[in-house]
């Protein structure tokens, strides 16, 4: 374990572009939410809907890429970074603590949602499940997520992507400011 410092935005942004550019030059696209459609199709959802009747074998590189990202998460956490607390803005720490997230500022992710304790808390499971459904439904409906719309779409001057990104923020801001403050107290 190296216990490296986290990387600043000006390292992360360019590395994301290197990923996008390398995929494009390899004849692929940079869009992570397509993987969800490919996964469903590979699991046999073609029997349920036209949407999944795709040639998923020709898109199996999607699944190889996902496997790589999973390995990347493991390498970074267990070899490079270690257990590490995200250095949040003190205002954020204060705000989240007042919502009942007591480990804000001392952890990488809130234990209430991401530690073993979550498995036995129905509210935590419900939040992850419903949140996940919204991510899957929303990104497929919008035909893209942060990688396809915000980064690929906007950098290729695809203005419809701006509508999607505005949507991301309408939904994210509404939930962060009006829903999460009443959900997290239920977790403690």
């Amino acid at each position, binding site marked *: 374990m190296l216990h490296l410092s986290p990387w600043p935005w000006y390292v992360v942004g360019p590395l*994301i572009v290197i990923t996008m550019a390398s995929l494009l030059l390899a004849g692929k696209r940079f869009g992570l939410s397509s993987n969800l459609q490919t996964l469903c199709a590979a699991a046999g959802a073609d029997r349920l809907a036209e949407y999944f009747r795709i040639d998923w074998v020709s898109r199996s590189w999607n699944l190889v890429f996902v496997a790589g990202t999973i390995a990347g*998460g493991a390498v970074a956490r267990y070899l490079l970074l270690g257990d590490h607390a995200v250095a949040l803005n003190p205002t954020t720490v204060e705000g989240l603590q007042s919502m009942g997230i007591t480990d804000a500022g001392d952890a990488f992710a809130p234990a209430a949602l991401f530690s073993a304790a979550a498995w036995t808390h129905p509210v*935590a499971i419900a939040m992850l499940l419903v949140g996940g459904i919204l991510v899957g439904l929303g990104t497929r409906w919008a035909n893209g997520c942060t990688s396809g719309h915000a980064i690929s779409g906007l*950098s290729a001057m695809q203005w419809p992507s701006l509508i999607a990104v505005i949507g991301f923020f309408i*939904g994210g*801001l509404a939930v962060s400011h009006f829903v999460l403050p009443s959900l997290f107290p239920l977790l403690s």
Partner: protein
Amino acid sequence: MTRIFLLGLLFGVTLTMGEVISWFRIQEMFRFESFHMYGVIGSAIVLGAVFHLVARRLRWKTAEGEDLDIYRYPATEWKAYLIGGTIFGMGWAITGACPGPLFITFGAGYWPILVAILGALLGTLIYGVMKSKLPH
């Protein structure tokens, strides 16, 4: 395929080392209390735009000699972008994960994210089944 796997690995390492997969960083972004995520996405958009301009000007091709497969989003489907985007944003704020980080978070050992991955596949299934009845 080895190259694709390594690119995935690079992407997973990058988003973990950059704390993009941290629920806290996404919350900080939606509270407008940190520049970090705006720096990540903003610098990627600016550099990505430079890449797209250069690739178009110099007519870069893939190794097989084909045109780059750049996204084309038809403006006529604006309702899908707005409604779908808003629904995704809600899920992003709750789970702290967009579709890439969903899987990277699992790799990083935060196991309960599996529930969100299951949810995302379920959400995709719902979309696939309902697609013809949804506004686009």
